[in-house]
Every structure is written in C-alpha cells, then in structure tokens.
C-alpha cells in the first residue's frame, strides 16, 4: 500500500529528542537509538508512533531504503553507519554542514560512488545487483552536475529521455517544456542559459522518467527567492501527483521547513537527529530550524579533532 502525500503530512512524526551530544560515542549511540525507534523499538511511553512509511516491515512501499551505509576513504570516514528510508510521496530533507556526507550519500544512492559497506534499495531493487533497473526508477538534479552546455534544451531532454528509456518521449518533452516554462528556450543551448533557467532544465531532466525516487542536491541554490519559491511549489506538486519519494539537500532552512515532510540532520557522516522540520525546533528549545542546525553543526566540532584524522 502506498501512502498519499496528504497522509504523509498528517501522520505524526517520531519525536525523538536528541540528548546533549558530547562525544562521538554519544552521537553514535543516539543514531542507533534513533534507528531502534524507527525499527519499532520505541523510546518508552512518551515516544510518538513511528511514521508508517519508515517501517522495515513495509519495505516494498519505500522509494528508498538505506541500511548501515558506510563510506571510508583512506583516512576519513565520510559516511558512518547511516540508515534511513524515504517513503513514496514523502520529501525527506538531508541537512548538515559542508562535508557532513550529504553528497556522498547521494552519490552512493546513484551508484557513482561505491560504499564501503551497507545496502541501498530503490523500491525493492538492490542498487548493486539490479543497478540498471533501479536507476531507471531514479533521477537527480544537482548544482555540480550541470547538463551538457553544447546541447539545446530539447536535445538534452531527448538524450536523457532515451537514456532512461522514456516511452512517448516527444509528448513527455513537450509536457516538461510547458511545465517548466521552457518553450521559449527549447532550441537554446544550455551553456548560454541563466542559472535559473539552467535549474529549470535540470529539474525537467530530473523528472523526465517519472522517477519513483528523486534526489535533489541543493536544487534552488542558484535561484532568486521568487524563482526558488516557484520551483519548490512545482516540485511539491509533482511529488503529490506522481507519488515519488524525494531526498532533498539544502542549506536554506526556510525552504526545508516549507518543503520537507521530515528531515535528517547529518554531521560527520552520521545521522544525529530526525523529525518534522516544523516541530523539531520547539522540541529542542530553539526558535527555528536554522538555530537547531547551527547548534547541531557546532556540537561535533569540538569532538572532531579527537576522532577524525
């Protein structure tokens, strides 16, 4: 059974209150505690019901399931035993300071970076053993992965549409051009587009195959506030219509609060905190999500010198 976007919004989120994070082991313990909550273990009588789409028992309904993911470079632990799910129709924010491991996680989900250990399932497909089928249900947009500037908007959409095996591609491209107001730019080379226009093309490409899982790495980073709002509304509408799951990274906490159903705070490759972006700040005694972000981002810094080489 799939949950609709409306159900996702209404379903209570896990209200896991992070204890003071003094050390790496505390944080690790916290992350494990969180996982046990999500696995149905609970934190006691006060814990709220677990979000239904996160249950391991409902794995076939998940758009993305990441389990015990680790990525270690020679001397750096980039991702450290991370587990999380993204349900269909759910937008999950992946937050954290620069270098926290957000892009590493996205790259491993896209299989352009091999994790050291752990498993990733897109829908019911394992990315390692059923890579092509899994990636056919996925797509992404990221500021650091711009589309070839020497192809026009339509050429790019046709190229990626073919790569993703999209049926009735011509009609799909026309619909995307309308949806993202790109008709006027259809024969313009992407290399001469403005940042905002490029972002719209990248987002059009990212949904060309009606992905079940959409990965957006700071999709509005280069947009003015008005354009960013428009894009956010568009993506939200798209998710509601298509029922796809979205993993969204952003440093704009206002945006996160507006768009995301649930957020994961990541620091030094570990998930420190998870919850509803609209209620988390109050639960942690801060005024807003940005303050919570800053607090969490600062916590591990004192510890870092001792742990990471």
């Amino acid at each position: 059974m799939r949950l609709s976007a409306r159900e996702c919004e209404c379903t209570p989120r896990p209200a896991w209150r992070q204890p003071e994070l003094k050390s790496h082991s505390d944080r690790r313990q916290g992350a494990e505690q969180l996982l046990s909550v999500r696995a149905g273990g609970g934190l006691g009588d006060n814990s709220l019901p677990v979000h239904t789409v996160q249950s391991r028992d409902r794995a076939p309904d998940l758009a993305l399931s990441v389990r015990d993911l680790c990525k270690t470079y020679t001397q750096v632990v980039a991702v450290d035993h991370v587990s999380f799910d993204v349900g269909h129709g759910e937008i999950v924010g992946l937050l954290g300071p620069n270098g926290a491991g957000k892009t590493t996680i996205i790259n491993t989900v896209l299989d352009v970076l091999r994790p050291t250990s752990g498993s990733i399932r897109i829908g019911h497909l394992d990315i390692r053993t059923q890579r092509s089928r899994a990636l056919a249900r996925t797509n992404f947009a990221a500021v650091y992965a711009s589309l070839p500037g020497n192809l026009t908007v339509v050429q790019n959409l046709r190229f990626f549409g073919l790569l993703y095996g999209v049926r009735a591609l011509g009609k799909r491209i026309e619909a995307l051009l309308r949806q993202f107001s790109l008709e006027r730019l259809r024969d313009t080379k992407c290399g001469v587009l403005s940042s905002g226009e490029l972002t719209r093309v990248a987002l059009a490409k990212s949904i060309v195959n009606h992905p079940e899982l959409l990965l957006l790495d700071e999709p509005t980073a280069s947009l003015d506030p008005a354009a960013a709002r428009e894009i956010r509304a568009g993506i939200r509408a798209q998710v509601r219509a298509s029922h796809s799951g979205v993993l969204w990274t952003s440093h704009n906490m206002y945006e996160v609060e507006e768009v995301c159903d649930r957020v994961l705070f990541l620091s030094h490759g570990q998930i420190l905190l998870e919850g509803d972006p609209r209620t988390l700040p109050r639960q942690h005694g801060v005024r807003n999500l940005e303050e919570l972000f800053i607090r969490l981002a600062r916590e591990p810094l004192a510890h870092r010198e001792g742990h990471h080489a």
Partner: protein
Amino acid sequence: MKLRPVAAILLRQWYLIRGSPVRILPMFVWAAIDIVLWGFITRYLNSVSGAGINFTTVLLGAVLMWDLFGRVMQGVTTAFLEDVWSRNFLNLFASPLTLAEYVSGLVITSLASSVIGLTVMLALAIPVFGLSFLALGAHLLAFLAVLFGFGVALGVLASAMVLRFGPASEWLVWPIPALLSPFCGVFYPLSVLPAWMRAVAYALPPSYVFEGMRQLVLGGPFATGPLVWAAALAVAHILLASYCFVAVFRYAVRSGLLARYSAETVS
C-alpha cells in the same frame, strides 16, 4: 544490452557533429591533406624510381589504411572526451546506462565518422592519384576489419587512461598512433627492424596487415595464417582494453574519482 541507451549516445554525438563545423571539418580536411601530400610523394617516387614498384599502392595505400586506423582510435576517444569536456559523467553514469551500452555507442560513432573519412580519402586517392586496391582483392575487407578492431581496442584503452589520470591526460592519447607506426611497418618491411622492435611488432595486428599488403601488391606469396592470427590478436586486444576500461571504471566508482573527476585524483 538495450538499444535505446546506445541510440542516445549516438544521438548526442550526432547533435554535436551536426551543429559544429569544427567537428565536421577534421573528418574531411586532414584526410584530404594526407592523401594529397602522399599522393604527390608517390607520384614523384614512381617517376624517379626504376625499381618497377608501384608506390601508389604500396605507400599511398598504406597511408590510407594507417589513417583509417588512427581515425577509428581517435573516433572512440573523441566521443569519450566529449563527455569529459562537458563534465557529463555524473549525469551519464547515474542513469541506467551500462558500460557495454556506453562503449558500444562510442564505437558505432567512431565507425560512422571513420567511414566518412575513408570515403573522402578514396574519393581523392582513386580518381586523382590512380590508387587501386584491386591487387588486394577480398583481403582488403579482412585488412580493414583488423585495423578497425585494433583501432577500437586502442580507443577504449586510451579512454580508460583518460578516465584514470584525468582530463589533462588527453594529451598522452593523441600521439599513440605515431608512437606505434615505427613498430607496425607501415612503410617498410618488418625485416628491416631490429629484433626487439620486431618482437613488439608481432604483438600488434597492423604489422600483419601491412606485411600482407606489401606481399599482395608486390606479387609475392600470401599466407592467410598471419592474417587470421592478426584478427585473433585484434579480438584479444579489444577484450584486454575492455577489461582495462571496466577495471578503471570500477576503481573510479570505488575511490570517488568518478564523482570528483575534475579533481583528476582523489589522493
């Protein structure tokens, strides 16, 4: 292997070539310059030499065949470099595209552009300089197939090298055909080479092609055994190059090089 992703790679190359004179011109211009230059050289040699050798087929034919080999190799590499230059690896390899589909697309692109170059060369060499491949007979197709196969192998290997060592290493790719030509006996028989160079030559399929061409043109006995061996060598080179490409790609995915390709190194 699915056809649509291969078609996507071909379509992208078509878009690039169609919209860019700087990509179209080299297909014709360099081929024409080579044929004109060597055409006049052979015409001159025919006029001053009393050896009774037809230099047009021996030299101009060899130039044409060697040029084809270089074109095939660089056709594969250039198609690959288009993705390097446009920083398109993340978009490509985060899609359902498989390595086999990707490389197939590059090879077919190279085949198409090489055939265009070959056509231009033949269109100049046959009517203007009287080149005739009649002496080669049906062996010509086998010679072309071996050169094409080895060109593909080197193109894939060169692409693996660029993937491993970063965009700047493309400058190591371009001289590869020139580096190999002394060993392959394009203009002279292998017997004039020192022993160590002959040993290298025997591992290179084009050596057998040019030896065979000379034998046929000069009317000597022709053994098909070496040509079959050359074809087997070309297949072995393709398999080896493919293995290298896959190994380098896996390293790039494991080490993070693919995701941070512009950095050239992850260390």
